[in-house]
Protein backbone atom coordinates (compact mmCIF):
# COMPACT_ATOMS: atom_id res chain seq x y z
CA UNK A 1 0.00 0.00 0.00
CA UNK A 2 1.49 3.29 -1.08
CA UNK A 3 1.36 6.04 1.51
CA UNK A 4 0.06 9.46 0.65
CA UNK A 5 -2.30 12.12 1.93
CA UNK A 6 -4.95 10.41 -0.16
CA UNK A 7 -4.39 7.02 1.38
CA UNK A 8 -4.77 8.62 4.81
CA UNK A 9 -8.07 10.26 3.87
CA UNK A 10 -9.39 7.14 2.15
CA UNK A 11 -8.54 4.98 5.16
CA UNK A 12 -9.88 7.47 7.65
CA UNK A 13 -13.24 7.36 5.89
CA UNK A 14 -13.34 3.60 6.30
CA UNK A 15 -12.56 3.84 10.00
CA UNK A 16 -8.85 3.12 9.54
CA UNK A 17 -9.69 -0.56 9.45
CA UNK A 18 -8.04 -1.35 6.13
CA UNK A 19 -4.42 -0.54 6.86
CA UNK A 20 -2.15 -3.48 6.20
CA UNK A 21 0.90 -4.62 8.20
CA UNK A 22 3.93 -2.56 7.22
CA UNK A 23 5.95 -5.73 6.75
CA UNK A 24 5.05 -9.41 6.64
CA UNK A 25 5.81 -11.92 9.37
CA UNK A 26 7.07 -14.77 7.18
CA UNK A 27 8.31 -18.15 8.28
CA UNK A 28 11.94 -18.63 7.32
CA UNK A 29 12.63 -20.48 4.08
CA UNK A 30 15.19 -23.23 4.11
CA UNK A 31 17.71 -21.24 2.07
CA UNK A 32 18.45 -17.67 1.08
CA UNK A 33 21.03 -16.16 -1.22
CA UNK A 34 21.94 -13.73 1.54
CA UNK A 35 21.20 -13.83 5.22
CA UNK A 36 21.73 -10.67 7.20
CA UNK A 37 22.15 -11.07 10.94
CA UNK A 38 20.66 -8.10 12.75
CA UNK A 39 17.33 -6.40 12.10
CA UNK A 40 18.45 -2.96 13.11
CA UNK A 41 18.93 0.06 10.90
CA UNK A 42 22.05 -1.20 9.17
CA UNK A 43 20.80 -4.74 8.55
CA UNK A 44 17.48 -3.54 7.20
CA UNK A 45 19.09 -0.87 5.04
CA UNK A 46 21.48 -3.48 3.67
CA UNK A 47 18.57 -5.74 2.78
CA UNK A 48 16.69 -2.87 1.19
CA UNK A 49 19.57 -1.78 -1.03
CA UNK A 50 20.53 -5.37 -1.88
CA UNK A 51 17.03 -5.93 -3.21
CA UNK A 52 16.42 -2.53 -4.73
CA UNK A 53 19.80 -1.45 -6.06
CA UNK A 54 21.65 -4.68 -6.59
CA UNK A 55 18.86 -7.03 -7.60
CA UNK A 56 19.53 -9.53 -4.83
CA UNK A 57 16.03 -10.28 -3.64
CA UNK A 58 16.24 -13.70 -2.03
CA UNK A 59 17.31 -12.19 1.26
CA UNK A 60 16.42 -12.75 4.89
CA UNK A 61 17.06 -10.46 7.83
CA UNK A 62 17.24 -12.32 11.14
CA UNK A 63 16.55 -10.34 14.29
CA UNK A 64 16.81 -11.89 17.72
CA UNK A 65 14.40 -9.43 19.33
CA UNK A 66 11.79 -7.20 17.79
CA UNK A 67 12.68 -5.25 14.70
CA UNK A 68 14.68 -2.16 15.53
CA UNK A 69 15.32 -3.22 19.11
CA UNK A 70 19.00 -2.35 19.01
CA UNK A 71 20.69 0.98 18.65
CA UNK A 72 18.47 2.28 15.86
CA UNK A 73 15.78 2.62 18.51
CA UNK A 74 17.99 4.04 21.23
CA UNK A 75 20.12 6.88 19.98
CA UNK A 76 20.01 10.66 19.82
CA UNK A 77 18.92 10.67 16.14
CA UNK A 78 21.66 12.96 14.86
CA UNK A 79 22.48 13.01 11.17
CA UNK A 80 25.60 14.83 9.95
CA UNK A 81 28.63 14.59 7.70
CA UNK A 82 31.12 16.86 9.42
CA UNK A 83 34.16 14.59 9.62
CA UNK A 84 37.78 15.50 9.23
CA UNK A 85 39.67 12.51 7.91
CA UNK A 86 39.69 11.53 4.25
CA UNK A 87 38.79 7.98 5.25
CA UNK A 88 35.54 9.16 6.81
CA UNK A 89 34.25 12.29 5.16
CA UNK A 90 33.31 10.87 1.73
CA UNK A 91 31.47 8.01 3.38
CA UNK A 92 29.40 10.18 5.70
CA UNK A 93 28.64 12.66 2.95
CA UNK A 94 27.43 9.80 0.79
CA UNK A 95 25.17 8.89 3.69
CA UNK A 96 23.96 12.47 4.04
CA UNK A 97 22.94 12.55 0.38
CA UNK A 98 21.04 9.31 0.78
CA UNK A 99 19.26 10.80 3.81
CA UNK A 100 18.20 13.74 1.73
CA UNK A 101 16.29 11.52 -0.68
CA UNK A 102 15.24 8.85 1.75
CA UNK A 103 11.64 9.83 2.33
CA UNK A 104 10.79 9.74 -1.35
CA UNK A 105 12.88 6.64 -1.91
CA UNK A 106 11.20 4.72 0.91
CA UNK A 107 7.74 6.33 0.63
CA UNK A 108 8.05 6.71 4.38
CA UNK A 109 8.47 9.93 6.28
CA UNK A 110 11.55 9.49 8.47
CA UNK A 111 11.14 13.14 9.45
CA UNK A 112 14.61 14.24 8.46
CA UNK A 113 15.01 17.62 10.01
CA UNK A 114 17.96 19.58 8.62
CA UNK A 115 18.14 22.11 11.37
CA UNK A 116 21.93 22.32 11.45
CA UNK A 117 24.56 20.86 13.73
CA UNK A 118 26.88 23.32 15.42
CA UNK A 119 29.99 22.26 17.33
CA UNK A 120 31.17 24.90 19.76
CA UNK A 121 34.80 25.81 20.30
CA UNK A 122 36.25 27.30 23.42
CA UNK A 123 39.90 27.97 22.63
CA UNK A 124 42.09 28.94 19.73
CA UNK A 125 43.43 25.42 19.50
CA UNK A 126 39.95 23.98 19.29
CA UNK A 127 39.01 26.53 16.67
CA UNK A 128 42.02 25.57 14.58
CA UNK A 129 41.02 21.92 14.79
CA UNK A 130 37.49 22.77 13.64
CA UNK A 131 38.84 24.92 10.84
CA UNK A 132 40.91 21.98 9.72
CA UNK A 133 37.77 19.86 9.82
CA UNK A 134 35.62 22.45 8.04
CA UNK A 135 38.17 22.70 5.25
CA UNK A 136 38.28 18.91 4.98
CA UNK A 137 34.53 19.01 4.52
CA UNK A 138 34.84 21.65 1.80
CA UNK A 139 37.47 19.50 0.09
CA UNK A 140 34.75 16.89 -0.26
CA UNK A 141 32.33 19.58 -1.47
CA UNK A 142 30.43 19.70 1.80
CA UNK A 143 29.48 23.16 2.95
CA UNK A 144 30.52 24.23 6.43
CA UNK A 145 30.54 27.58 8.18
CA UNK A 146 32.62 29.03 10.94
CA UNK A 147 30.31 31.00 13.18
CA UNK A 148 32.06 33.52 15.35
CA UNK A 149 30.94 34.55 18.79
CA UNK A 150 28.93 37.65 17.92
CA UNK A 151 27.03 35.88 15.15
CA UNK A 152 26.52 32.88 17.39
CA UNK A 153 24.98 35.08 20.08
CA UNK A 154 22.32 36.15 17.64
CA UNK A 155 21.76 32.63 16.38
CA UNK A 156 21.66 30.85 19.74
CA UNK A 157 21.18 33.48 22.43
CA UNK A 158 20.76 31.15 25.40
CA UNK A 159 24.25 29.67 25.51
CA UNK A 160 26.46 30.44 28.49
CA UNK A 161 28.37 33.34 26.94
CA UNK A 162 29.10 35.21 30.14
CA UNK A 163 29.83 32.70 32.87
CA UNK A 164 31.08 29.55 31.18
CA UNK A 165 34.12 27.86 32.64
CA UNK A 166 35.47 27.70 29.09
CA UNK A 167 34.41 30.71 27.07
CA UNK A 168 32.19 30.00 24.08
CA UNK A 169 34.11 31.55 21.21
CA UNK A 170 32.22 30.23 18.20
CA UNK A 171 31.25 27.11 16.37
CA UNK A 172 31.51 25.03 13.25
CA UNK A 173 28.13 24.73 11.59
CA UNK A 174 26.87 22.24 9.06
CA UNK A 175 23.45 23.49 8.04
CA UNK A 176 22.41 20.36 6.17
CA UNK A 177 22.90 18.24 9.25
CA UNK A 178 20.13 17.61 11.74
CA UNK A 179 18.03 14.79 13.08
CA UNK A 180 15.66 12.07 11.87
CA UNK A 181 12.97 10.03 13.61
CA UNK A 182 14.95 6.94 14.56
CA UNK A 183 12.23 4.29 14.75
CA UNK A 184 10.80 5.43 11.44
CA UNK A 185 14.14 4.72 9.79
CA UNK A 186 13.99 1.10 10.88
CA UNK A 187 10.34 0.77 9.95
CA UNK A 188 10.72 2.53 6.63
CA UNK A 189 13.63 0.33 5.57
CA UNK A 190 11.79 -2.75 6.81
CA UNK A 191 8.70 -1.88 4.83
CA UNK A 192 10.78 -1.05 1.77
CA UNK A 193 12.80 -4.26 1.97
CA UNK A 194 9.67 -6.28 2.56
CA UNK A 195 8.05 -4.80 -0.52
CA UNK A 196 11.06 -5.93 -2.53
CA UNK A 197 10.59 -9.45 -1.28
CA UNK A 198 13.00 -9.55 1.65
CA UNK A 199 11.92 -11.82 4.49
CA UNK A 200 12.25 -10.09 7.84
CA UNK A 201 12.21 -12.67 10.58
CA UNK A 202 11.86 -11.28 14.07
CA UNK A 203 12.51 -13.19 17.30
CA UNK A 204 14.93 -15.43 15.47
CA UNK A 205 18.25 -15.61 17.29
CA UNK A 206 21.33 -16.86 15.51
CA UNK A 207 23.06 -19.39 17.73
CA UNK A 208 25.71 -20.72 15.40
CA UNK A 209 27.34 -20.32 12.02
CA UNK A 210 27.70 -23.54 10.04
CA UNK A 211 30.78 -23.88 7.88
CA UNK A 212 31.73 -26.61 5.45
CA UNK A 213 35.13 -26.68 3.80
CA UNK A 214 35.87 -23.22 5.10
CA UNK A 215 32.75 -21.74 3.59
CA UNK A 216 29.66 -20.59 5.46
CA UNK A 217 26.63 -22.66 4.51
CA UNK A 218 24.05 -21.27 6.87
CA UNK A 219 23.12 -20.37 10.39
CA UNK A 220 21.68 -22.25 13.33
CA UNK A 221 18.86 -20.23 14.80
CA UNK A 222 16.18 -20.44 17.43
CA UNK A 223 13.91 -21.30 14.52
CA UNK A 224 16.15 -24.02 13.16
CA UNK A 225 18.88 -24.14 10.54
CA UNK A 226 18.65 -21.72 7.65
CA UNK A 227 20.98 -22.11 4.69
CA UNK A 228 22.55 -19.22 2.82
CA UNK A 229 24.88 -18.40 -0.01
CA UNK A 230 26.35 -15.41 1.75
CA UNK A 231 26.19 -14.38 5.36
CA UNK A 232 26.33 -10.74 6.39
CA UNK A 233 26.78 -9.65 10.00
CA UNK A 234 25.24 -6.34 11.06
CA UNK A 235 24.79 -6.85 14.78
CA UNK A 236 26.51 -3.80 16.26
CA UNK A 237 26.83 -4.07 20.02
CA UNK A 238 27.05 -7.83 19.71
CA UNK A 239 29.42 -8.10 16.75
CA UNK A 240 32.10 -9.83 18.81
CA UNK A 241 29.60 -12.48 19.88
CA UNK A 242 28.31 -13.18 16.40
CA UNK A 243 31.82 -13.03 14.98
CA UNK A 244 32.98 -15.53 17.57
CA UNK A 245 30.60 -18.08 16.03
CA UNK A 246 32.83 -17.97 12.97
CA UNK A 247 36.07 -17.69 14.97
CA UNK A 248 36.55 -14.07 13.97
CA UNK A 249 38.69 -12.03 16.33
CA UNK A 250 37.55 -8.46 16.15
CA UNK A 251 39.05 -5.12 17.17
CA UNK A 252 36.03 -4.22 19.27
CA UNK A 253 34.86 -3.61 22.79
CA UNK A 254 31.20 -3.27 23.69
CA UNK A 255 30.44 -0.18 25.71
CA UNK A 256 27.31 1.45 26.98
CA UNK A 257 26.36 4.95 25.90
CA UNK A 258 23.56 6.69 27.73
CA UNK A 259 21.08 9.01 26.14
CA UNK A 260 18.39 11.09 27.78
CA UNK A 261 15.17 12.86 26.99
CA UNK A 262 13.45 15.62 28.92
CA UNK A 263 9.77 16.26 29.38
CA UNK A 264 8.08 17.68 26.29
CA UNK A 265 8.55 21.42 25.92
CA UNK A 266 7.42 24.02 23.45
CA UNK A 267 10.10 24.54 20.78
CA UNK A 268 13.11 26.26 22.33
CA UNK A 269 16.24 24.68 20.84
CA UNK A 270 16.47 24.86 17.10
CA UNK A 271 19.86 23.35 16.27
CA UNK A 272 21.75 20.31 17.28
CA UNK A 273 24.35 21.85 19.60
CA UNK A 274 27.57 20.12 20.56
CA UNK A 275 29.57 21.36 23.55
CA UNK A 276 33.30 21.64 23.02
CA UNK A 277 34.10 21.85 26.72
CA UNK A 278 33.04 18.22 27.05
CA UNK A 279 31.08 15.75 24.99
CA UNK A 280 27.54 16.99 25.56
CA UNK A 281 25.15 17.34 22.62
CA UNK A 282 21.49 18.25 22.52
CA UNK A 283 18.60 18.76 20.13
CA UNK A 284 14.85 19.05 20.41
CA UNK A 285 12.61 16.46 18.84
CA UNK A 286 9.45 17.26 16.91
CA UNK A 287 7.51 16.00 19.93
CA UNK A 288 9.17 18.60 22.13
CA UNK A 289 11.52 16.52 24.25
CA UNK A 290 15.13 17.64 24.48
CA UNK A 291 17.25 14.68 23.44
CA UNK A 292 20.83 14.64 24.66
CA UNK A 293 23.85 12.61 25.61
CA UNK A 294 27.59 12.78 26.07
CA UNK A 295 30.30 10.19 26.54
CA UNK A 296 30.21 6.45 27.18
CA UNK A 297 30.22 5.09 30.72
CA UNK A 298 33.74 3.79 30.17
CA UNK A 299 33.72 0.11 31.08
CA UNK A 300 32.87 -2.70 28.72
CA UNK A 301 29.27 -3.70 29.05
CA UNK A 302 26.48 -5.50 27.28
CA UNK A 303 23.82 -4.11 29.62
CA UNK A 304 21.53 -1.52 28.09
CA UNK A 305 21.68 0.71 31.13
CA UNK A 306 24.06 3.29 32.43
CA UNK A 307 25.39 4.54 35.72
CA UNK A 308 24.47 7.59 37.72
CA UNK A 309 27.95 9.11 37.90
CA UNK A 310 28.07 9.45 34.12
CA UNK A 311 24.50 10.72 34.00
CA UNK A 312 25.34 13.43 36.53
CA UNK A 313 28.39 14.39 34.54
CA UNK A 314 26.26 14.73 31.42
CA UNK A 315 23.93 17.10 33.27
CA UNK A 316 26.90 19.14 34.53
CA UNK A 317 28.05 19.67 30.97
CA UNK A 318 24.53 20.49 29.83
CA UNK A 319 23.99 23.18 32.44
CA UNK A 320 27.48 24.52 31.79
CA UNK A 321 26.61 25.04 28.14
CA UNK A 322 22.99 26.17 28.57
CA UNK A 323 22.35 27.54 32.09
CA UNK A 324 18.62 27.69 31.38
CA UNK A 325 18.41 23.92 31.24
CA UNK A 326 18.73 23.94 35.02
CA UNK A 327 14.99 23.73 35.71
CA UNK A 328 14.14 21.47 32.80
CA UNK A 329 13.35 17.98 34.02
CA UNK A 330 14.87 14.85 32.60
CA UNK A 331 12.28 12.21 31.91
CA UNK A 332 14.14 9.13 30.92
CA UNK A 333 17.62 7.72 30.49
CA UNK A 334 18.50 4.72 28.39
CA UNK A 335 21.62 2.91 27.34
CA UNK A 336 22.74 1.51 24.04
CA UNK A 337 25.49 -1.05 23.58
CA UNK A 338 28.12 0.26 21.20
CA UNK A 339 30.69 -1.58 19.18
CA UNK A 340 33.63 0.63 20.13
CA UNK A 341 36.38 0.01 17.62
CA UNK A 342 40.08 0.54 18.20
CA UNK A 343 40.25 3.73 16.14
CA UNK A 344 36.73 5.03 16.57
CA UNK A 345 35.80 4.25 12.97
CA UNK A 346 33.58 1.49 11.57
CA UNK A 347 34.42 -1.63 9.64
CA UNK A 348 32.70 -2.75 6.43
CA UNK A 349 34.63 -5.60 4.88
CA UNK A 350 34.93 -9.16 3.76
CA UNK A 351 36.43 -11.58 6.24
CA UNK A 352 38.94 -14.36 6.04
CA UNK A 353 35.99 -16.61 5.22
CA UNK A 354 34.97 -16.12 1.60
CA UNK A 355 31.23 -15.69 1.86
CA UNK A 356 31.14 -14.06 5.29
CA UNK A 357 30.80 -10.28 5.41
CA UNK A 358 31.21 -7.92 8.29
CA UNK A 359 29.64 -4.61 9.21
CA UNK A 360 30.53 -3.42 12.72
CA UNK A 361 32.41 -0.97 14.90
CA UNK A 362 30.05 1.97 14.58
CA UNK A 363 30.97 3.43 17.96
CA UNK A 364 28.44 6.16 18.65
CA UNK A 365 28.09 7.14 15.04
CA UNK A 366 25.95 4.38 13.64
CA UNK A 367 22.63 6.13 13.19
CA UNK A 368 23.79 8.82 10.80
CA UNK A 369 25.63 6.18 8.79
CA UNK A 370 22.61 3.93 8.33
CA UNK A 371 21.90 4.62 4.65
CA UNK A 372 25.53 4.59 3.50
CA UNK A 373 26.36 1.61 5.65
CA UNK A 374 23.47 -0.33 4.13
CA UNK A 375 24.34 0.78 0.63
CA UNK A 376 28.05 0.08 0.86
CA UNK A 377 27.52 -3.23 2.62
CA UNK A 378 25.01 -4.27 -0.04
CA UNK A 379 27.51 -3.22 -2.71
CA UNK A 380 30.19 -5.34 -1.08
CA UNK A 381 27.96 -8.37 -0.67
CA UNK A 382 26.48 -8.22 -4.14
CA UNK A 383 29.66 -7.42 -6.05
CA UNK A 384 32.30 -8.71 -3.69
CA UNK A 385 33.93 -5.35 -4.10
CA UNK A 386 34.33 -2.50 -1.65
CA UNK A 387 32.36 0.61 -2.48
CA UNK A 388 34.75 3.51 -3.20
CA UNK A 389 33.59 5.62 -0.24
CA UNK A 390 34.19 2.77 2.20
CA UNK A 391 37.73 1.91 1.12
CA UNK A 392 39.37 3.23 4.25
CA UNK A 393 37.04 1.25 6.49
CA UNK A 394 38.55 -2.17 5.86
CA UNK A 395 39.29 -4.61 8.66
CA UNK A 396 42.98 -5.01 7.82
CA UNK A 397 43.70 -1.32 8.31
CA UNK A 398 45.03 -1.97 11.80
CA UNK A 399 47.53 -4.55 10.67
CA UNK A 400 48.58 -2.34 7.75
CA UNK A 401 48.92 0.79 9.85
CA UNK A 402 46.06 2.77 8.38
CA UNK A 403 43.84 3.40 11.39
CA UNK A 404 41.18 6.05 10.80
CA UNK A 405 41.57 7.78 14.13
CA UNK A 406 39.36 10.87 14.05
CA UNK A 407 40.02 11.64 17.74
CA UNK A 408 43.74 10.88 17.57
CA UNK A 409 43.33 8.90 20.76
CA UNK A 410 45.04 5.66 19.77
CA UNK A 411 44.03 2.05 20.27
CA UNK A 412 41.92 2.37 23.40
CA UNK A 413 38.25 2.07 22.52
CA UNK A 414 36.81 4.05 25.40
CA UNK A 415 38.81 7.14 24.44
CA UNK A 416 37.07 7.53 21.07
Amino acid at each position, binding site marked *: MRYSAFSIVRNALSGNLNWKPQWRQPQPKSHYDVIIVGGGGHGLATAYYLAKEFGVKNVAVLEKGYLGSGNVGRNTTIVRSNYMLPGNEPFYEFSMKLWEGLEQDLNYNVMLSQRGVIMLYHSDGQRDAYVRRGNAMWMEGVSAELIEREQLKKMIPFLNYDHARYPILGGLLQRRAGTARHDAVAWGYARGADQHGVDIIEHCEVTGIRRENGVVTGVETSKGFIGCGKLALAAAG*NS*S*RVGEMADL*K*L*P*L*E*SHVLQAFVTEGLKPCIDHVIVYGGGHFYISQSDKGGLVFGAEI*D*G*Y*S*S*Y*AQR*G*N*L*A*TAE*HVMEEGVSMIPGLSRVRVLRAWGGVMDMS*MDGSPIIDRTSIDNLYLNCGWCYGGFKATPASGYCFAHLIARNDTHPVARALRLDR*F*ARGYAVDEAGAG*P*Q*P*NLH
Partner: protein
Amino acid sequence: MASLITCPHCGVRPKEEFAIRGDASLVRPAPSASDEAWHDYVYVRANPRGRTVEHWHHVAGCRRFLVVERDTVTHEVYSVVDGAAAAREAQR
Protein backbone atom coordinates in the same frame (compact mmCIF):
# COMPACT_ATOMS: atom_id res chain seq x y z
CA MET B 1 30.51 -2.02 39.59
CA ALA B 2 29.05 0.79 37.70
CA SER B 3 28.65 2.56 41.03
CA LEU B 4 31.19 1.26 43.54
CA ILE B 5 34.48 -0.62 43.41
CA THR B 6 36.14 -2.13 46.43
CA CYS B 7 39.76 -1.13 46.05
CA PRO B 8 42.04 -3.59 47.85
CA HIS B 9 44.07 -0.63 49.11
CA CYS B 10 41.47 2.05 49.74
CA GLY B 11 38.14 0.34 50.39
CA VAL B 12 34.80 0.97 48.73
CA ARG B 13 35.02 3.80 46.24
CA PRO B 14 32.74 5.47 43.72
CA LYS B 15 33.19 4.90 40.02
CA GLU B 16 34.34 8.44 39.36
CA GLU B 17 37.59 7.89 41.24
CA PHE B 18 38.66 5.47 38.52
CA ALA B 19 39.78 5.60 34.91
CA ILE B 20 39.10 2.44 32.96
CA ARG B 21 41.84 1.21 30.73
CA GLY B 22 40.36 -1.98 29.29
CA ASP B 23 41.01 -5.69 28.93
CA ALA B 24 43.33 -6.95 31.66
CA SER B 25 43.87 -10.38 30.16
CA LEU B 26 46.31 -9.12 27.56
CA VAL B 27 50.01 -9.82 27.98
CA ARG B 28 52.48 -7.63 26.16
CA PRO B 29 54.37 -9.76 23.64
CA ALA B 30 58.11 -10.14 23.62
CA PRO B 31 59.86 -7.61 21.38
CA SER B 32 60.70 -10.41 19.00
CA ALA B 33 57.15 -11.74 18.80
CA SER B 34 55.39 -11.90 15.44
CA ASP B 35 53.56 -9.05 13.79
CA GLU B 36 50.37 -10.97 14.34
CA ALA B 37 51.00 -11.32 18.07
CA TRP B 38 51.60 -7.59 18.32
CA HIS B 39 48.55 -6.78 16.23
CA ASP B 40 46.38 -8.99 18.39
CA TYR B 41 47.78 -7.47 21.57
CA VAL B 42 47.18 -3.90 20.53
CA TYR B 43 44.03 -4.27 18.45
CA VAL B 44 42.09 -7.47 19.08
CA ARG B 45 39.75 -7.83 22.06
CA ALA B 46 37.92 -10.91 23.24
CA ASN B 47 35.14 -8.62 24.43
CA PRO B 48 33.32 -11.31 26.37
CA ARG B 49 29.68 -11.18 27.22
CA GLY B 50 29.75 -12.25 30.83
CA ARG B 51 32.84 -12.64 32.97
CA THR B 52 35.76 -10.43 32.08
CA VAL B 53 38.83 -8.88 33.63
CA GLU B 54 39.43 -5.19 33.20
CA HIS B 55 42.04 -2.70 34.35
CA TRP B 56 40.65 0.10 36.49
CA HIS B 57 43.14 2.78 37.44
CA HIS B 58 42.42 4.28 40.82
CA VAL B 59 43.54 7.73 39.70
CA ALA B 60 41.97 9.68 42.52
CA GLY B 61 43.04 7.17 45.14
CA CYS B 62 46.10 4.96 45.44
CA ARG B 63 46.95 5.31 41.73
CA ARG B 64 47.18 1.57 41.39
CA PHE B 65 45.97 -0.33 38.38
CA LEU B 66 43.45 -2.83 39.67
CA VAL B 67 42.28 -5.95 37.94
CA VAL B 68 38.52 -5.99 38.27
CA GLU B 69 36.89 -9.28 37.50
CA ARG B 70 33.30 -8.59 36.63
CA ASP B 71 30.32 -9.49 34.54
CA THR B 72 29.61 -7.33 31.51
CA VAL B 73 25.90 -8.13 31.58
CA THR B 74 24.91 -8.10 35.25
CA HIS B 75 27.72 -5.75 36.27
CA GLU B 76 28.42 -7.94 39.26
CA VAL B 77 31.99 -7.66 40.54
CA TYR B 78 33.65 -10.94 41.48
CA SER B 79 37.03 -9.75 42.62
CA VAL B 80 39.36 -6.77 42.65
CA VAL B 81 43.11 -7.31 42.99
CA ASP B 82 46.19 -5.20 42.55
CA GLY B 83 47.36 -5.10 38.95
CA ALA B 84 51.06 -5.54 39.61
CA ALA B 85 50.47 -8.69 41.61
CA ALA B 86 48.26 -10.03 38.85
CA ALA B 87 50.82 -9.10 36.20
CA ARG B 88 53.62 -10.89 38.02
CA GLU B 89 51.45 -13.94 38.20
CA ALA B 90 50.58 -13.75 34.50
CA GLN B 91 54.22 -13.40 33.51
CA ARG B 92 55.12 -16.46 35.50
